[in-house]
């Protein structure tokens, strides 16, 4: 009989999203996907922890998602604090 372990599904989903998130680094503009999927992966890993699931799958999911977010953000972030859009100001004129 299958016994449901609280938090395990979230941990597995977090690991899968973490792997996809890191994979998305390598496809140019999909770096935004790395950030989005990585954030969802981290949230799932933390939810899993909240349910009391503290296995290595959860840790791996959290770490991979974090790496995915950091790598994606490197490509995604241009300049947060300013309104300026760098080299594309007036691009359509």
């Amino acid at each position, binding site marked *: 009989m299958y016994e449901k372990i609280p938090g395990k599904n979230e941990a597995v989903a977090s690991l899968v999203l973490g792997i996809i998130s890191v994979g998305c680094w390598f496809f140019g503009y999909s770096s935004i996907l790395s950030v989005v999927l990585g954030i969802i992966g981290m949230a799932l890993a933390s939810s899993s922890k909240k349910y009391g699931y503290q296995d290595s799958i959860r840790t791996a999911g959290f770490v991979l998602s974090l790496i995915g977010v950091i790598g994606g953000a490197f*490509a995604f972030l241009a*300049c947060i*604090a300013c309104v300026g859009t760098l080299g594309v100001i007036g*691009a*359509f004129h």
Partner: protein
Amino acid sequence: MFPYFSIAGRTISSYSLFSLAGVLLALLYYLRVRRRSGFPEADGELAIISGITGAFSGAKILFLITVLPEFCAEFRFLFSDTELFLEKYLYSGFVFYGGFFGMLFAAFFYCRHARLDFSECLRLLFPMIPLAHAFGRVGCFCMGCCYGRKSALFGIAFDNSPVAPNHIPLIPVQLFEAAGELLLFFVTAHMAAEKKNGFLILAFWLVSYGLIRFFTEFLRGDAYRGFLGPLSLSQIISAAAAIFGIVLLIRYRKK
């Protein structure tokens, strides 16, 4: 300064590097203080994740509000010139205050949803914001964005900035703000260690940063910002934030 550098064949902006260094240092600060805070660990992580999501969304929404007429006029390019359109409106252009209030609202709603004390959450997590922002401002300086007015006396000339005018001495207003934010980090971290009310920490930062930002905006020389009359959008938000901070200070000063 050094706007870009290359790692493994990929060009990375120094702004990204400094921002992420700031975020990582802020996370280290969180790891250091979380055990003695008594705030549930998993909830602390989820509040940070909600805050990051809120920050991205808020910073982008406020940017789009400042360029709304231009955005509406150029929306048709989304399908004909997708890459350039996304580069202009999605991948660059974020506003700090939008990110800050987005982060605050997201963390507030998470705490409300999880039935947690928002004041405790603020006390634990708030000092992370000025720390991360201080590094972000150093990144701005390396990139040359958010640059200051011309000044022969205090100016620093950029030689290869993709944003600021090169070879003209400009006031390093980004570094002034970075120094102010670093100071605010130490003060808010001290207040948190002293177990001050979280709303008091928030109020102190709103008043202090509001004043710093209001006056440093007068030193800025970049024209591509939102303006309402003689004041920039950031100055108006700074003044409102400082007033809101004073109201909070009066309300929570004895708690």
